């Protein structure tokens, strides 16, 4: 988790919203985050197809919808519509940020297990893109003056290749990881679209409170 956070902080200077001296507001960085989300959605479609074929049936069957066995630690993207609507921007962004932080760590575990070199390359590329998304979300949050969520001690997502998991459950975890990623990206696209529309009217420029967030 610390590594993830460090990576995010490393990428923060690259976020346009933080670099602009003339303050264009958070609009462009939200747009870029939205675009990146859509790109990742597209990228995941091909990656998931390859990886699930690699796992074999029933995981690559289109109508396979197993009960969510294991994978409890994966952040769930599904949420009640009313609850979702009641969330404010800060909460939504925080949830997105936390979810992708977790998913990224699990995804790296997936990369380690992949047997074929081609699949490892695809996964590494996707991880890099997801890392970029995480940085973008952090940039948007900073532009809007929201603090980044601090990881609670002892809740760092870790990838454990331990024997506690049976191989079948491990495959199931991989399946759910990809499925949650897909749902999260879909949800994030909606979130950023919503935020983008909200920020579209000419509003007062949002100034960065970098000092307040410890930058």
């Amino acid at each position, binding site marked *: 988790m610390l590594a993830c956070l460090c990576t995010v902080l490393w990428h923060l200077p690259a976020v346009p919203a933080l670099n602009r001296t003339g303050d264009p507001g958070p609009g462009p960085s939200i747009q870029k985050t939205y675009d990146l989300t859509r790109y990742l959605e597209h990228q995941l479609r091909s990656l998931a197809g390859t990886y699930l074929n*690699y796992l*074999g*049936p029933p995981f690559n069957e289109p109508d396979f919808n197993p*009960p969510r066995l294991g994978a409890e630690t994966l952040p769930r993207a599904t949420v009640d519509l009313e609850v979702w609507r009641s969330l404010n921007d800060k909460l939504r962004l925080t949830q997105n940020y936390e979810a992708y932080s977790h998913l990224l760590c699990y995804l790296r575990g997936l990369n380690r297990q992949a*047997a074929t070199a081609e699949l490892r390359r695809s996964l590494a590329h996707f991880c890099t893109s997801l890392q970029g998304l995480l940085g973008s979300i952090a940039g948007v949050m900073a532009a809007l003056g929201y603090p980044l969520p601090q990881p609670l001690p002892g809740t760092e997502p870790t990838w454990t290749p331990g024997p506690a998991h049976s*191989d*079948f459950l*491990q*495959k199931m975890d991989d399946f759910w990881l990809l499925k949650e990623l897909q749902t999260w990206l879909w949800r994030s696209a909606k979130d950023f679209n919503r935020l983008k529309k909200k920020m579209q009217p000419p509003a007062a420029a949002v100034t960065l409170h970098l000092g307040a967030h410890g930058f």
Partner: protein
Amino acid sequence: MALFAIFQTTFFLTLLSLRTYQSEVLAERLPLTPVSLKVSTNSTRQSLHLQWTVHNLPYHQELKMVFQIQISRIETSNVIWVGNYSTTVKWNQVLHWSWESELPLECATHFVRIKSVVDDAKFPEPNFWSNWSSWEEVSVQDSTGQDILFVFPKDKLVEEGTNVTICYVSRNIQNNVSCYLEGKQIHGEQLDPHVTAFNLNSVPFIRNKGTNIYCEASQGNVSEGMKGIVLFVSKVLEEPKDFSCETEDFKTLHCTWDPGTDTALGWSKQPSQSYTLFESFSGEKKLCTHKNWCNWQITQDSQETYNFTLIAENYLRKRSVNILFNLTHRVYLMNPFSVNFENVNATNAIMTWKVHSMRNNFTYLCQIELHGEGKMMQYNVSVKVNGEYFLSELEPATEYMARVRCADASHFWKWSEWSGQNFTTLEAAPSEAPDVWRIVNLEPGNHTVTLFWKPLSKLHANGKILFYNVVVENLDKPSRSELHSIPAPANSTKLILDRCSYQICVTANNSVGASPASVIVISADPENKEVEEERIAGTEGGFSLSWKPQPGDVIGYVVDWCDHTQDVLGDFQWKNVGPNTTSTVISTDAFRPGVRYDFRIYGLSTKRIACLLEKKTGYSQELAPSDNPHVLVDTLTSHSFTLSWKDYSTESQPGFIQGYHVYLKSKARQCHPRFEKAVLSDGSECCKYKIDNPEEKALIVDNLKPESFYEFFITPFTSAGEGPSATFTKVTTPDEHSSMLIHILLPMVFCVLLIMVMCYLKSQWIKETCYPDIPDPYKSSILSLIKFKENPHLIIMNVSDCIPDAIEVVSKPEGTKIQFLGTRKSLTETELTKPNYLYLLPTEKNHSGPGPCICFENLTYNQAASDSGSCGHVPVSPKAPSMLGLMTSPENVLKALEKNYINSLGEIPAGETSLNYVSQLASPMFGDKDSLPTNPVEPPHCSEYKMQMAVSLRLALPPPTENSSLSSITLLDPGEHYC
């Protein structure tokens, strides 16, 4: 009896003692029953591990025993396996034995018991089995937690082709459980209400990520839970193939093998098989890091023999191969080096090389390969360290590639890699005279000799030919020889020689020297013999030629040929034939179908003078004609026409023209004589006539019908077929009478012309006879009389001599502009004033009878108006006043003018047309003056004189109608318009 009693007592006592002994033995063996049986499990291996002891064994005594083991499943009565285990049991020894279950142990409780028997020679028969131990129950409790379904075995690793049993445990028997293997449902055997087992026979390898098996529990359509396992199926580990070791420096042994299939599985379930090299003499072992080769360091110089075992191993299996060899027998030399060539000349060279030294007194076998001119030569040579080989019989000026490889001569193992170099031999003088032939053209006073020669083959050129020397020597007159040097690559030259005999020598020269000379003699007496050309048929393989032998001594024959149509110099070829041969086959790829080739066969006398023997011409393959003749139709009559195609060349065709096919189409169903019915390629029928003579290039088609439509088409044919199909030419025969008409008309026209000529010649006579000249009043004598009287007024007659019918006096106002040009004449009045008219009306209505006439001849006769002809002839109508009233309205007139005559405004100046005099000889009709009057009017008696009268312009105007001509006519009153 007493004896019997004693015997009986003894027997009973013996028997008793025996029974006592037996009971003692049994008493001794009964404690040998297995005791302290403990059963443990290995869930991964699905095995039961039994351990027990045998009590009461004599101290330090070994005893062979047999243990029988019984295993039951689910309940003790369900015995699934019984087997014996024989072993030697020592005092106080704990015995171990394992059994592997095909059914995962988690799915069923197992029961084990054991009994034993002594099977030792020290204890003679009979032996008795001990009692069974008590049943030991074995249960692997992994079905814990809240789950309602469990599938076993978990993530098992098996080898491809093995039989695997899987099972599930369902806690709720109400649930319906379905199991799937790779997405396909499988059916099993129910062991009890909770447990079902599935036997998978000979499982295949599907993927290294494992085969997925899962079960789903459901009640109705509601899923209650799902559990699955991954069965990892490994490929069978293969034995390494082609295992061998060799050394190239006696320091390292390089061992290689073919590893076969990689048995690695995903998720590190099984890594790739490992390879270990073990040498038995030294007892050393090395784990190889590569999967197909390994290097072994030679540490002891003294060790000559090695015994290697290569062990391939994975989690499931171990395979090994073994080789035993002497080190000196496995020497793989490094490739030779310093390959060089010394003393290279035109035909030989010395090749040298060096071999990497291995040990002292080593002899090497080397192999040399020499590649050049598409050939390969191989030589073997035995050398020490420095190799040398003399390469001979090489071709001059040729590039060779020589390479060498070596091996241990004493114990051949394998050749080293090749080491090679290229070298080129030096040039030598050409070894053969060039093949020369000639064409002699006779010209007035001299010979034009065109010499041809073929380039020498590389084999004979022995280098690059730089030039050809042609030496011409006159054989008739002593003179100096002429030398012509022609640079290569020319292959011909032209010489103009006078009518003497000449000897021509041709040599090819390279940088080293000249070839032998090729000699040809041109005779002073030219070859003027007329030789008939013979047609021959070629084949795809060429032309087969034969000829009559030349009388006298010949040194050979020459056949030359060229394309019939092309330039001689371009495609000229020849072939030399031996003196005893009178036939040959000319076969070359250059022969093309449809091309005619001319062959000439010469005999070469001992004096090297050529004599033309025969001429032949032919096609390697005849083709159908490429074009059809242009046909002309001559002498077309009603019953025949002639077709001719004189300009069609039969010589320049892709085959010998054998004749022509004439196709004729007509409406008549019957063909004409000589024609036969034929069906064309398009299916239509026509008549066909065949001309067999290719020089017959005309055909008279007769017996035709007049005024009939015919179509014809002429195509030549060769042995390969007809010419291309083309459109038919259409001919229509003329009418039968038209010729007759011509026969009649022509003389008639001739006669008419003759008469006309004669008339012309006799025109004066005819004129005088038929129509004498009309006297001209101006030339009459009366004019001379008037002149004589000097009367300024031209008065021909006195007015008093005439009785006028009517007198019209018109006073014309000034400024009136009138045009009067018949029906299309226009008139414009800028100002119309009412004119004053005076009509002199005739006293008698019928004035047509002969009577005196009075006319004025106005000397101011308006020529223009007069020239307008009879168009201006408007008779004076008695009803004119009434009409005048209608017309005098200025508006009406203006309208009429505007409507009909506006186009002619201003053609005649005002004041000049106030009076018009109309000849009474003119037609009364408006219109063309040449047109005949429809109502001819009798001219008055004085009609041969021009009578003139003034006509009112107003009256001359047509009414304002669209058809002025008709309107004008309506004004006419026949019989009343003459003066």
